[in-house]
């Protein structure tokens, strides 16, 4: 095992390399492109015995990926934001095809307005597609999750595509020390691709992805996807335990940080959880009982584990780096559903939305959110969801609007309407 400094993107590429993927359908998009560039270089240099094909869109890329997987090879692909949405039709199809492949998404906010920086609306748009989802907070986790994802995808009890998510910029372009497992050890953990009889072969005619007539058959196949996704929870636990035994790194479906006797808990996914941890360390040092819960596995949704970790707390703050306009934070909705109807009543839930389009969440803001949560618990009433935005940020927007309208500074938007 070697330990080197890798970006999140390079770690994803290493995951694919160690998984000895056969086929990489690709299409460039920032901030994912480094992944396919790295793989292309390895393939061209003869380091990786694989084939990379650049399609003309992510819709085609995903189609080729799924078609290859159901023909019988191990497939890796990667995209971000607009690309994931451009291929959305095929995400649902690939799950329905039961195509066992791994797709890395490097999260990036969705247009409009167009931006390069991350939030989770892209990956959460794929939430109901039937792809399983693993979310990363470190570069090491990116590499390891790709390996876990293949075991999960190819398990005969699951047989579903898996999406591994990392945040653009904060992980994709950040170098961290990453332990690279020995290829032989990976080969032991992840046996060669087995198609479980799902393939195209001369002499063995098969029809895949055929039409159905009637809701009964349609429901049957959709339920099959759902049941396989549910079954994936137990398979994930097995696979993660096997991974820990072999490589010494532990990846429970839900990470609990300083939760032992925490009264208040923050819930987040992705790399910003690392910022939350720093804030929590400070608060704990000051004698507060605050922890963090971070789902790694988002599909299947680890509801039982979240109930176990959160059901007895006084208060839980969900920090969503996504926004469902007209509703609010998506994780908050999901968590509310998971914690509803507990015999002991469950914790008070407070919703925050922040970190959209790569906007930072500062340490003081975490401290403030904990304070709002504490207050809410004391009063026994959850305040309305809060959208993180500072007075200073608003001033900055106003200044730019003044420039755009050719006004002298400080007049602001409202005054100029005619």
């Amino acid at each position, binding site marked *: 095992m070697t330990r080197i400094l890798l970006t999140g993107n390079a770690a994803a590429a290493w995951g694919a390399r160690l998984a000895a993927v*056969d086929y990489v359908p690709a299409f460039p998009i920032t901030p994912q492109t480094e992944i396919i560039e790295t793989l292309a270089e390895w393939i061209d240099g003869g380091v990786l015995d694989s084939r990379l094909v650049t399609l003309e869109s992510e819709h085609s890329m995903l*189609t080729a990926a799924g078609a290859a997987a159901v*023909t019988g090879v191990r497939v890796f692909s990667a995209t971000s934001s607009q690309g994931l949405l451009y291929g959305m*039709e095929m995400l649902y*199809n690939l799950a329905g095809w039961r195509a066992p492949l791994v797709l890395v998404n490097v999260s990036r906010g969705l247009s409009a307005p167009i931006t390069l920086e991350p939030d989770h609306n892209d990956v959460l748009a794929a939430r109901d597609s039937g792809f399983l989802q693993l979310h990363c907070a470190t570069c090491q986790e990116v590499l390891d999750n790709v390996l876990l994802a293949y075991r999960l995808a190819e398990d005969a009890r699951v047989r579903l595509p898996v999406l591994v998510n990392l945040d653009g910029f904060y992980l994709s372009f950040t170098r961290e020390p990453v332990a690279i497992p020995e290829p032989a050890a990976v080969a032991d953990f992840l046996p060669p691709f087995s198609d479980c009889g799902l393939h*195209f072969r001369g002499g063995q005619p098969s*029809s*895949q992805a*055929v039409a159905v007539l009637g809701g009964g058959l349609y429901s049957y196949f959709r339920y099959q996807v759902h049941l396989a996704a549910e079954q994936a929870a137990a398979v994930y636990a097995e696979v993660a335990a096997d991974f820990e035994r072999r490589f010494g790194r532990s990846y429970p479906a839900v990470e609990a940080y300083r939760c032992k006797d925490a009264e208040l808990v923050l819930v987040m996914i992705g790399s910003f959880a690392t910022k939350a941890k720093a804030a929590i360390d400070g608060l704990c040092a000051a004698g507060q009982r605050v922890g963090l819960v971070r789902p790694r596995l988002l599909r299947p949704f680890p509801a039982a584990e979240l109930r176990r970790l959160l059901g007895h707390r006084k208060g839980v703050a969900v920090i969503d780096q996504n926004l469902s306009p007209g509703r609010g934070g998506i994780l908050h909705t999901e968590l509310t559903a998971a914690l509803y109807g507990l015999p002991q009543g469950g914790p008070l839930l407070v919703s925050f939305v922040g970190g959209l389009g790569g906007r930072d969440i500062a340490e003081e803001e975490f401290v403030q959110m904990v304070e709002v949560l504490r207050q809410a618990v004391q009063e026994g009433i959850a305040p309305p969801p809060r959208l993180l935005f500072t007075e200073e940020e608003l001033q900055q927007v106003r200044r730019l609007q003044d420039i755009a309208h050719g006004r002298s500074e400080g007049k602001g938007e409202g005054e100029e309407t005619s």
Partner: protein
Amino acid sequence: MSESGPSSHSHLAPGTPLCAGCGGLQALQQLYRVLGDKTVVVNAAGCMTLLSIYPFTPFAGSWLYTAMACAAAGAQGVRDALDIQLAKGRISSAEDLATVVLTGDGSAYGMGLSATSAALDRGLDFLYLCYDNEGYGNTGHQYSSATPRAAHTATSRVSGYAGSKKDLFAIWAAHRPSYVATAIAAEPQDLARKVKKAAALRGPRLLLVLAPCPTGWGFDPALTVKVGQLAVETGIWPLKEYVDGRAVHTKIPRQRTPLAEYLRLQGRFAHLFSPQPDEQRLAELQQAVEDYWQQVTE
């Protein structure tokens, strides 16, 4: 690529839910007779999607339905996966399959064109069968970019389609593929020859088959062959092929039947004949045919 001749595994089983007299199905039958079961048919949304309805299929070989835009990309994935396994010794050449794309005009001329163009760029080894029924048939025959000028469709009910049929043959040929041919099931010998030629070649190949469609075009299913023959005899559907960088007509109708005889058989052109003949539009349509053949024979 398989070059297998006719075999017991090369007929489409009867009993599909397609309409009686479907010109597209006739062409597919001819193609399948040559290609046989050592194929994966990669399909896009359209009438033919209903050939394989769980748990039945008329195909002796394999089938993959994709979506409307991306059959060519599906073919890429299948072809690449087979090639990878052949190269890595995981399957034998006896287990190899030919990759066939099957789509309608709506997909081939429109939504799937970007994926197809890219497959041509890459020189993908596949055979594309487009059954051109000149409209979005499966959704009730709205106009597509393959609809001929003046045709009534579900979205051009009043005075007919205002555009003109797109030239997909030329678009394909501009990519310099291995083979492009237009054909029609009503000219079985011409079609059979082109099918054999296409099957024997490698690289990107298109069979663009006009598919008289009783349901969408409004004629009696018994007239499918007649309508098809008239399409050729009037010169509105030129039979040609592109091979080795050159486009050649495989049949030049020098004594062309007046176009009106083709149009008159079809409900979609009825407004050109009643209550009174629309002489001006009929003349324009005839002139467009004349102009085409003028530049061919000159």
